[in-house]
């Protein structure tokens, strides 16, 4: 890679994740919007070399990523923890065919959560992914974010494995309910 004007470590951690996706040559991003992913979604839409695919439900993304790989491109997915539950059966596609897959998950229901309805899925997100043999990494601190995403992408695309990076709610910051 040629050196960039802005050193990576001076960037916001979300921008660092975007740089990690670019370095891994990710060309399609499927997402269901989440406040925690807002910056990343903005960056993806602004990049002419990445196709941003807004999904109606998260499981669409598992199939999109499989298709991308069949067509010779790399895809990654952005979703909230609640959306992981929507993916379970579709993950059989990644598992049965050993499609490379990296899902970046913004966590809800685990830290300073206002809405108790988020706890049901948020508290089971990691277990649900592991039940389908998705390799799960967690990020608690800003300085670990990009490195962890890179590790997940590397093992996914070099090892034909499904991976997920859980971005903890403490890292993202609690949602403000009263503005």
């Amino acid at each position, binding site marked *: 890679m040629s050196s960039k004007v802005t050193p990576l470590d001076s960037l916001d951690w979300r921008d660092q994740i975007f740089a990690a996706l670019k370095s891994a040559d990710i060309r*399609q991003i499927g997402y269901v919007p989440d406040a925690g992913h807002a910056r990343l979604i903005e960056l993806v839409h602004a990049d002419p070399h990445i196709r941003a695919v807004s999904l109606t439900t998260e499981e669409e993304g598992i*199939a999109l*990523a499989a298709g991308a790989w069949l*067509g010779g491109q790399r895809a990654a997915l952005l979703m909230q923890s609640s959306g992981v539950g929507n993916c379970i*059966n579709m993950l059989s596609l990644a598992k*049965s*065919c050993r499609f490379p897959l990296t899902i970046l998950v913004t966590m809800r229901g685990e830290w300073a959560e206002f809405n108790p309805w988020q706890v049901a899925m948020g508290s089971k997100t990691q277990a649900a992914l592991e039940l389908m043999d998705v390799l799960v990494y967690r990020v608690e601190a800003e300085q670990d974010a990009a490195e962890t995403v890179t590790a997940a992408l590397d093992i996914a695309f070099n090892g034909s494995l499904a991976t997920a990076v859980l971005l903890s709610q403490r890292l993202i910051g609690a949602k403000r309910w009263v503005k």
Partner: protein
Amino acid sequence: MTNQKRLDRRAAIGVLLAERGDILVVTGLGSTTYDAASLGDDERNFYLWGAMGGATMVGLGVAIARPDRPVLVVTGDGDALMGLGSLATVGVQSPPNLAIAVFDNGRYAETGMQPSHTDSAVNLVGVARSCGIEAAFDIADEAALADFARRVQRAECTLFARVAILAEEPPRVLPPRDGVLLKNRFRRATGVE
């Protein structure tokens, strides 16, 4: 619906792929996988043996990655109904090289011919149009299907066809089920690996 003319599904797949050219094919689980295999197994076919509701999105991923090739999804009404939202996603993306043909018998053939939603209330062509796929056709004869197949080759805009087929179960033709094999041979045969 019940009095409408309907095509034999094996005749229909034959017309769709009569002059296949460079078309990449994704099939939905169940009967449309057997239909594609009935023409002879082809490494440029990616057959889904599960992941119900996913055929259209697999096709979208391929179509975005391979703008140089026409991509044809052939799936059933059950798979299309389970992935109805993916038509909305396709409508937003509108890749010109993606075509979706839904073989609609209004039945879940694989599980005992139970009626699907398209047997009564749901019009898939209307759904596709409402999702922004303007080139959406209701097809019940071979001439119209052959015309659709030619449009697939031209890859000028996202296409959708609801193909009315008879609720019959012709003898199954089973292609390989090993997902890793299907994935790797598709990539090799299409020059991305």
